[in-house]
């Protein structure tokens, strides 16, 4: 691949301090994101999956520079924005937008939808003030709401409608990159498909690039080209979505996939891999491979040495000492 990636993260880490100990020796830290490297090419959709608490959302916020990055580098269109100040990021926000998990919390309850949707235009002075109402009406229509809805307040809408407003706001200025952080997990299953379809339609129409974070494998499978599987802050496997889900090579991916319910009785089910134990605390991650405490294939090597994320020769990458056969 010769094109520059739209977004490139290199060994990105995010550490949160826990508590307020004065002595450095007693300070504890949670490493929510641990040396994650990934690239997002223009036009593709990268799904990020993993169980709750694995650092997906923290990673998403780091990619959007909505929180500070502890170490590693982040490049947007080849420009290093790892340490970019809030002021320097502001003009770039036009190009990179976020759709939030909880549509109710991400809309200021005291403002009318019309005001919320005119924010992007006002903040970036993207059009004449006189034009704003028309642009807002067009946005509302585009996400299958009505122009009259501009006069309402967020609480008057259903969850799915609120998420449409959140999507409209994120896409108002036709950004290049959209990070969607669990955009459908707060919604009813029947609404989820509508929102995923809307996101997919908008992608075709506006030529968007998505980073789509979710814990629901079927949703990710529906919308992504490529997928990255996270476990305890690290990426364990990446690759084209069909390959990763149909022939997973990392034991964790295999276990995740086998947990997806199959809604057909006559289809033979894949052997269920049941993981024992809980996700280890990120306060005190296990040494070696972070998955070894729950991995059915773990050996002494796994306990001692952390496997690096290496290309698997099939357009993906894998971090495992004992991968499953391709």
């Amino acid at each position, binding site marked *: 691949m010769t094109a520059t990636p739209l977004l490139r993260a290199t060994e990105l880490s995010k550490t949160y301090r826990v508590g307020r100990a004065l002595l450095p020796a007693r300070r504890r830290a949670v490493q929510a994101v641990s040396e994650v490297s990934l690239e997002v090419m223009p036009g593709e959709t990268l799904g990020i999956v993993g169980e709750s608490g694995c650092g997906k959302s923290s990673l998403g916020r780091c990619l959007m520079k909505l929180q500070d990055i502890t170490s590693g580098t982040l490049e947007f269109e080849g420009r290093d924005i790892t340490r970019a100040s809030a002021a320097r990021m502001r003009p770039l926000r036009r190009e990179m937008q976020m759709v*939030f998990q909880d549509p109710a919390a991400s809309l200021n309850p005291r403002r009318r939808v019309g005001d919320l949707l005119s924010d992007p235009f006002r903040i970036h002075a993207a059009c004449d003030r006189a034009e704003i109402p028309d642009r807002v009406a067009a946005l509302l229509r585009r996400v299958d709401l009505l122009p009259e809805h501009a006069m309402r307040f967020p609480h008057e809408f259903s969850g799915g409608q609120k998420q449409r407003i959140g999507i409209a706001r994120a896409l108002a200025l036709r950004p290049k990159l959209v990070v969607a952080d669990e955009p459908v997990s707060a919604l009813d299953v029947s609404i989820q498909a509508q929102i995923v379809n809307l996101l997919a339609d908008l992608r075709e129409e506006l030529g968007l690039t998505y980073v789509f974070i979710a814990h629901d494998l079927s949703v990710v499978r529906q919308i992504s080209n490529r997928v990255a599987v996270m476990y305890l802050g690290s990426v364990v496997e990446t690759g084209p979505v069909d390959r990763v889900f149909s022939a997973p090579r990392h034991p964790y991916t295999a276990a995740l996939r086998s947990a997806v319910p199959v809604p057909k009785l006559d289809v033979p089910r894949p052997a269920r891999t049941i993981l024992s134990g809980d996700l280890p605390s990120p306060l005190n991650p296990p040494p070696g491979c972070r998955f070894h405490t729950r991995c059915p294939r773990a050996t002494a090597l796994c306990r001692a040495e952390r496997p690096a994320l290496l290309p698997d020769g099939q357009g993906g990458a894998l971090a495992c000492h004992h991968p499953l056969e391709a």
Partner: protein
Amino acid sequence: MTDTTPPLPEKARAAEGPWATAWRRLKRDRAALAALAVLLVILAACLAAPLYATYVSGTNPFATNLNGTITVDGKSRDVLEASTEGLGLGLTPIGPTWQLGPYMLGADNQGRDVAARLLYGGRNSLFIAGAAAVLCLVVATFVGVVAGFFGGLVDTVLSRILDVLWAFPIFLLAISLSIVLISQPLLIGPFEIRSGSLALPIVIIGVVYIPYVARPIRNHVITLMKSEFVTAAVGLGASPWRILWVDILPNVVTRIIVFVPLMLALNMIIESALSFLSIGVQPPDASWGTIIQDGQGLLYSRPAVALAPGIAIAVTVLALNIFGDGVRDALDPKSTVRIG
């Protein structure tokens, strides 16, 4: 998805804003409305004090009357009568006549008309409570919002200053402040506060409650700063000033409004207490607190002198609290704002 989605059946109505919702809720709250009516009557009566003094009692609140006589039920009586109780020594002021006219609520021990003093004193008490509330809320809002919005070192410094203020028992702080201010005129820019000025109790009361208001506002701002809609605004590229103006302040304003009636009630009580202790309103000016002090010595013979302002304070404070609860329930149903 295309534009063929059938439009939802739409009621043609403008959405009700948060203020309209609050107003609708308040209008339904009968206790709060009754309390508001009581407050308006008290306010109107106090504002009409000069009318009462001129046309009803025919005196002013400062005029002493040591040797005068008035006619009650056709009989002439001294305003200060020779005492008939105990040893028959000393003078007892005339009791309430219960007639619209001079000395409706009796006289104090200098022969001044208690009813006229009550109304004039109410003006002072209400004015001090109101001005102190404004002073306190303006400063506390500024401090709370700045501390919460900027956080870090700014927050630490401001919060510690508030802690120092907070650490003082309110009355001890008020008494020390007033002693300093009474002995030495305070210069704030072009304003000079001398002893005897009404500005003195206003400043004292306004200052002592700043931490009690600034702290919850600071905490609210911090909560708002962490909310997802502020993160979303950052993600949209909004400047900090825009976030402050659009996302923080409108959400803080309701909290501040909720504080107003509760602050007024509290200030009334503090003002009375300070005036009773002779460190609030200075004689010959009256306030409800000073009238109680005047009536203290007459508690057995003429309880009306102390009771009248006492009842006035109790009714006003009760009404303010009921109205304040109504405002809180209307504006911010989930909050549990409390001061003191």
